[in-house]
C-alpha cells in the first residue's frame, strides 16, 4: 500500500498541499481558464499565421510565398533596410544609454530626478509621436526650415534613426541602470585597497559587471526597433522597412499570404533576441545578493560635468520631441502662425472623439481582464511544479517575442473566419482589448510572478495550521503582499493599451477606431495639428494613470519596508 502511495505522490511532485479537494479545484481553475485563454487568443492565432504563410494567392498550399521573397525586390530591400536601421539604432542607444545610465548611477551630476522623469515621457505616448515631433521640428513645415530656409529631407533613414533612438533610448537606460545598480561597493573598496585606479576599476569591475545589462539592452532595443510600426509609418517615407511592408502587403495589396510570410520573417529575429535577452538577464541577476552595499559615487567635478552635459543634451532631445507635439497641438498653424488656440481639439473629421472613448474602454477591459487572468495564472503556477508548470510558464512568456503587427495580423486570420465560433469576437472592442493584453502578456506575467514570489510561503502555512482555508490564505497572506503588484500590472496594461499602435492597426474598422490609429490617419491626411491634439489627449490620460498608479501603490505597499530601516 505504501509503495503505491509513494508512487502517486512522487508523480505529483513536491505538492505543498495535502489532498484537499476544494483547494486543488481552485488551483486547477486558476490554471485552466488563463491557459485556455492563452491558447485561444495567443497560440491559436499564431498557428494560423504560420498556416496562412503557406496559403498561396490562388488558394493552394505550398512554399510559394517563401519562394517569392527572393523575387520580390521590395521585400529584400525592406529587410535590408530594417536590419540597417535597427542595428544602427541599437549601437547608438547602447552607447548613449550606457553614458546616461553611468551618469545617473555613478556620478554626482545635477538634476538626476528631472532626468529620470523626462525619460518616462516617451512611454506615455504612441511610438509615432517621435516621428511626428521630428516633422514639427525638421520637416518641410518644421521650425528649422521656417527659421533658416534650409531644405532638410527628414523622411527616410536619418529621420527613422532619430525617432527610433528617441523612442528606444529610455528603455536602454533603464536596463543598463538596473545592471549598474546591481554592483557592490565592496568590489570597488577591495580594488582600491589593492591599489587600482579609476580606469582600472572601470575596466575590471564596472564593465564586466554590467556586460549582460548592455547585451540585454542591445537586444531589447533591436527588437522594439525592428518591430516598430508607428515611427516608420510616419517618417520612413520611401525608405521601406519590414514593418511597413507587412502593412502594405495586407492592407494595400490584400496579399495575406505574403503578409504572413513577412510577419514570420519579422518573428524570427524578435524571438531570437528575446531568447538571448532572457538567458543573459538570468545570468546577470542570478548573481545579485541580498546584502549588497550600493555604490555611492564621490563627486568629481570634471567627470560630473561631462556626463551631465551628455545626459542633459540627449534627454533634452528625448523630452523636447514629445513636448513639441504637445505644444503644437495648441498652435494655430504650425509653424506659420504660432498663436495659441484650442481649435485643434475640435476634431470634426472622421469620427471625432469616438476613438478616444473606444480606446479608453478597450484599455480598461484589457487591464481588468488581464490583471484578473494574470493573478489567477501566477497563483496557479505557484502551486504546481514540474513539467506542466514549465510548459505554462513558457507559453506565458512567449508573447513578448511576437511583434504587435504579427499579433494583429494573426488575429485577422484566426477571428475573421465565419466557420468558427470565434468569429463572434471579430470586429468587437473586446477582441482589441484581448489582443492588447496578449501583446503585453509577458511583462505583466513576469511582474505578477515576482510579486507572487514575494508572498511569504510560511505565512500561508501559518494560516493553514491555524485552521484557515483558502479564502483566508488569499485575503490575509496573499493579497496584502500582492496588491501593489496587481495594481502595477493593471496600470501597465491600461497604459500600454492606450498607446499601442502596431497590434491594433489591423483590427480597427471605421466604426471601431483607436486613438493611436487616428493619430496616424490624421497625420497621413495632412491634419497634423489634429494628430498632435489627439496625441496630447493620449499623453494626458496615460500620465494621469501613471500618477494615480504611483499614489495607489505607495498607499498599498505593506509597511514591512520599515523592517529595513
Amino acid at each position, binding site marked *: 500500500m505504501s509503495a503505491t*502511495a509513494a508512487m502517486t505522490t512522487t508523480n505529483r*511532485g513536491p505538492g505543498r498541499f*495535502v489532498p484537499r479537494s476544494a483547494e486543488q479545484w481552485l488551483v486547477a481553475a486558476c490554471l485552466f481558464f488563463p491557459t485556455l485563454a492563452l491558447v485561444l487568443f495567443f497560440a491559436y492565432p499564431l498557428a494560423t499565421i504560420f498556416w496562412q504563410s503557406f496559403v498561396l494567392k490562388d488558394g493552394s498550399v505550398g512554399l510559394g510565398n517563401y519562394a517569392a521573397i527572393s523575387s520580390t525586390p521590395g521585400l529584400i530591400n525592406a529587410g535590408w533596410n530594417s536590419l540597417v536601421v535597427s542595428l544602427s539604432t541599437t549601437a547608438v542607444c547602447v552607447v548613449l544609454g550606457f553614458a546616461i545610465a553611468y551618469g545617473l548611477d555613478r556620478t554626482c551630476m545635477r538634476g538626476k530626478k528631472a532626468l529620470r522623469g523626462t525619460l518616462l515621457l516617451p512611454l506615455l505616448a504612441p511610438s509615432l509621436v517621435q516621428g511626428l515631433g521630428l516633422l514639427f521640428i525638421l520637416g518641410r513645415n518644421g521650425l528649422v526650415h521656417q527659421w533658416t530656409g534650409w531644405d532638410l529631407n527628414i523622411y527616410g533613414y536619418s529621420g527613422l534613426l532619430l525617432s527610433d533612438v528617441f523612442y528606444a533610448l529610455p528603455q536602454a537606460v533603464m536596463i543598463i541602470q538596473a545592471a549598474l545598480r546591481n554592483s557592490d561597493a565592496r568590489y570597488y573598496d577591495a580594488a582600491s585597497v589593492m591599489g587600482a585606479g579609476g580606469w582600472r576599476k572601470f575596466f575590471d569591475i564596472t564593465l564586466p559587471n554590467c556586460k549582460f545589462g548592455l547585451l540585454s539592452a542591445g537586444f531589447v532595443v533591436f527588437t522594439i526597433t525592428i518591430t516598430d510600426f508607428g515611427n516608420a509609418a510616419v517618417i520612413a517615407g520611401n525608405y521601406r522597412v519590414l514593418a511597413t511592408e507587412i502593412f502594405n502587403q495586407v492592407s494595400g495589396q490584400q496579399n495575406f499570404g505574403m503578409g504572413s510570410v513577412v510577419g514570420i520573417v519579422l518573428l524570427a529575429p524578435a524571438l531570437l533576441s528575446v531568447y538571448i535577452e532572457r538567458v543573459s538577464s538570468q545570468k546577470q541577476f542570478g548573481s545579485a545578493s541580498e546584502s549588497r552595499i550600493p555604490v555611492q559615487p564621490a563627486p568629481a567635478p570634471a567627470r560630473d560635468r561631462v556626463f551631465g552635459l551628455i545626459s542633459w543634451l540627449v534627454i533634452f532631445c528625448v523630452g523636447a520631441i514629445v513636448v513639441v507635439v504637445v505644444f503644437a497641438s495648441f498652435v494655430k498653424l504650425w509653424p506659420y502662425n504660432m498663436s495659441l488656440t484650442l481649435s485643434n481639439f475640435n476634431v470634426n473629421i472622421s469620427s471625432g472623439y469616438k476613438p478616444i472613448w473606444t480606446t479608453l474602454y478597450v484599455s480598461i477591459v484589457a487591464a481588468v481582464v488581464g490583471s484578473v487572468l494574470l493573478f489567477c495564472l501566477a497563483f496557479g503556477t505557484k502551486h504546481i511544479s514540474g513539467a506542466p508548470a514549465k510548459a505554462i510558464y513558457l507559453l506565458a512568456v512567449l508573447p513578448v517575442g511576437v511583434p504587435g503587427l504579427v499579433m494583429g495580423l494573426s488575429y485577422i486570420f484566426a477571428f475573421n473566419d465565419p466557420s468558427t465560433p470565434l468569429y463572434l469576437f471579430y470586429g468587437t472592442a473586446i477582441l482589441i482589448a484581448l489582443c492588447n493584453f496578449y501583446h503585453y502578456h509577458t511583462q505583466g506575467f513576469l511582474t505578477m510572478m515576482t510579486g507572487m514570489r514575494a508572498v511569504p510561503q*510560511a505565512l500561508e*502555512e*501559518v494560516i493553514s*495550521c491555524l*485552521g*484557515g482555508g483558502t479564502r483566508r490564505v488569499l485575503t490575509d497572506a496573499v493579497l496584502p503582499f500582492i496588491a501593489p503588484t496587481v495594481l502595477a500590472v493593471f496600470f501597465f496594461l491600461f497604459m500600454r493599451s492606450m498607446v499601442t499602435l502596431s497590434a491594433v492597426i489591423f483590427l480597427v474598422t471605421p466604426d471601431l477606431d483607436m486613438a493611436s490609429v487616428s493619430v496616424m490617419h490624421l497625420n497621413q491626411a495632412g491634419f497634423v495639428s489634429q494628430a498632435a491634439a489627439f496625441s496630447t489627449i493620449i499623453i494626458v490620460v496615460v500620465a494621469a494613470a501613471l500618477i494615480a498608479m504611483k499614489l495607489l501603490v505607495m498607499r498599498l505597499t505593506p509597511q514591512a519596508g520599515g523592517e529595513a530601516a
Partner: protein
Amino acid sequence: MTLEIKNVSKQFDSFVALDDINLLVGEHEFVCLLGPSGCGKTTLLRIIAGLLDMGGGQLVFNGRDLSAVPARERGFGIVFQSYSLFPNMTVAQNVGYGLRIRGDAKGTVDKRVAELLELVKMPHLASRFPWQLSGGQQQRVALARALAVDPRLILLDEPLSALDARVRNEMRVEIHDVQRRLKIPTIMVTHDQEEALMLADKIVCMNEGRIEQVGTPQDLYLRPATRFVADFVGVSNLLGTAWVRRNAPGLLAGRPDGPDGDFELCVRPENITLQAAAGAPGHLNSVTFLGNLSRFRVDWDGQRFIVECHAQVRLESGAALSLRIDPDRCNWVHT
C-alpha cells in the same frame, strides 16, 4: 496526547528525503529533530504539520490516523524561522488571528490575547506593528500566536536561527519555561546541537533521511551510537580499532564483535588526562586558551587528539605528553 510516526518515507523525484522514519512523541515531551541541512528534519516536520503529503507510512495522533486530515484541521501550532507575522496587523491582532478564524467572540479573543502577551512578556507592545519590533520580539509574538489556539502539538521550525546569539539564549530559556509550564508536546527542528541539548527531553539525530539515534541529551552526548552522532553532537576523538589495539589495548574490552572497520572508539576531549613525561609518546602540537579552559592538540602515533582541561597547565609546544583515557568514559560507535 501522543504522536506516533510509523514507517514514514518521502521522495522528491529521485531524491530520498525520508527513509522509513519511526518515532514516538510522548505526552508533555519536548522532542528535537537535530541534524545538518538536507537531513530531512524539516521535511518530517512539514509532514507532521500536514503541509506536505507523505510518500508512505502513517501518522497516528492520539489513536487517530492523520493521513486524511488537512493541516487546518490538525489543530497544531507552528512557528517558523522567518517570523511570518502578518505585516498589516498589530501584535494583538496577530496573536488573536487563529481565535478569530475559529469564530470566537471578541471578548474571549481579547482576554486570551492578553493572557498570551503576558506569557511572552510583552503586554505593553500589543498595539505595535511587526516592523516596529526586534527579531526576538517578533518571534515571541509568533510563539504567542501559535499557543493562542491551545494547540495539541507545537511545531517549531528553527525558531531561533535568525536571532543573534544573546537573544537566542534568552529565547531558549523562555521556550523551555513555557513548554514545561504548559506541558504541550513540542517538536522542534534545529541544526544547533547546543540548542537541542539544552531544550530537549528527547533528541532525534538525523542524517540523510534516516534516524541515526534517538535518546536523551545525556545518551547522545555520553553514549553516541554512531560515528555520525559522535561527530555531530559535541567534539569527539574517534580512534580506529587498529590504533587502539596498538596503543591502548585495555580499551578493547567493551568493543562489540565485528570487522575492524565497523567500530571506532569515541572519546570526548574532557575525558582525557594529560601528563607531561619525558619520552612519552604524545607530542603537544598547539594550545588554545579559551578562558575557563584550554584546548590542546596532541599527536600520538599518527592520531590527532583534542583535549580540554580546566586546570591552568603550562606546557610548551612539542612537549612530550602521556594521555590517559578512562575506559568508563568512552564508548564504541558504529561507523
